[in-house]
């Protein structure tokens, strides 16, 4: 399993691996929004937590179809399925590799890009915390979507349609944590719900992903 994780990370960093794709998209969104909104610092700082969350979510979505499609195309997925690794372990490692190459850089970049959106000072820590808690859920749910659409040519559109509704609860509670944090309110309940979603999907979805992947490999 560790070999698979190391291989996936190595592939992501090498040329054409797609590392930084999500990060670049996140950067573009947060740079362009202030231009679109215009010179209204107060409005901008009010919507900043939501913009950061939407940007992170779309950046995650952008790289989802690479999680399994590349391994499917070159036949590695067939070979991995006959290897002594459990399928549930394979999809978990795939999701983890996706989070390390996409989710984690977004968490780290968010406070820097928050400056561009004149994010209120008390919100910084809550944006980072909510992204750190919420982005693993995005990767795990995304792996499920990728498993559902693996083998479908140009399955990206279908996958986006399938995955976006599943992302909504994470977005609602994640953005709520950041918003309440910005206004200095208590964040306990949305943060607990967000963590609940993350841990719940981490515990359950790998089994669903493995099951649909087995069917898709037939």
């Amino acid at each position: 399993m560790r070999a698979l994780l190391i291989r996936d990370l190595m592939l992501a960093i090498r040329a054409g691996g797609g590392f930084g794709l999500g990060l670049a998209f996140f950067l573009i969104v947060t740079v362009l929004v202030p231009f679109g909104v215009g010179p209204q610092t107060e409005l901008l700082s009010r919507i900043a937590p939501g913009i950061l969350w939407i940007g992170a979510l779309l950046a995650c979505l952008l790289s989802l179809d690479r999680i399994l499609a590349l391994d499917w195309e070159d036949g590695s997925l067939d070979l991995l399925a006959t290897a002594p690794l459990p399928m549930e372990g394979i999809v978990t490692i795939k999701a983890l590799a996706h989070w390390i190459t996409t989710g984690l850089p977004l968490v780290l970049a968010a406070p820097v890009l928050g400056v561009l959106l004149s994010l209120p000072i008390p919100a910084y820590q809550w944006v980072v915390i909510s992204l750190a808690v919420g982005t693993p859920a995005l990767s795990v749910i995304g792996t499920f979507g990728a498993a559902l659409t693996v083998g479908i040519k140009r399955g990206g559109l279908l996958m986006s349609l399938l995955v976006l509704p599943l992302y909504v609860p994470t977005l609602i509670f994640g953005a709520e944590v950041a918003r309440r944090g910005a206004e200095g309110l208590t964040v306990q309940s949305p943060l607990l719900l967000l963590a609940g979603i993350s841990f719940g999907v981490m515990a359950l979805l790998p089994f669903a992903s493995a099951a649909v992947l087995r069917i898709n490999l037939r």
Partner: protein
Amino acid sequence: MILSVRDLAVTRGGLAILEGVSFDLAAGEALVLRGPNGIGKTTLLRSVAGLQPPEQGTVTGAEDQIAYAGHSDGLKAMLSVTENLRFWASVFGLTDIESALVAFDLTELRSRMAGALSAGQKRRLGLARLMVTGRPIWVLDEPTVSLDAASVALFAEAVRTHLQQGGSALMATHIDLGLEEARVLDLTPFKAAPRARQMDEAFL
């Protein structure tokens, strides 16, 4: 260690293509599947490898014993030859890749990126992967595609060594490998009789 296939029926795209296939494969044996295109060699091999559940019949002795090599080699273009092999070796819990590199004459290419290899070299790397799995039963689907005569000889030698070490091989191939000891099973008599579809596979 024995692979035993009993009364196997397989479907492709919801249509029955083979039925009543039975054979045994003991240690040290090789079995070559023959038959015209579309008879179901690939589907049969995938069923034996456990990638696809058979419609009927049983495959026994295959659990965690099979190293499967399909039409694609599962290579990553941006990893070098040794990195590709080392990855598969560690997936199967092994570390030694040198003998596989030597057996398929890849030692001079070891630091090349897999994406920069020719089709035949890629194939050789894909076949070298079998040797780092440590699995006794090799299930090979058209292993000699894009190999030249010298490489086919290398491959036949690797299979022979594997058989002598107590392994076995099940392969679908059209060309003669020069493996005199290999049995041949022609799949043509097992072609499934055409019948109406019983259920819609797409929704299963």
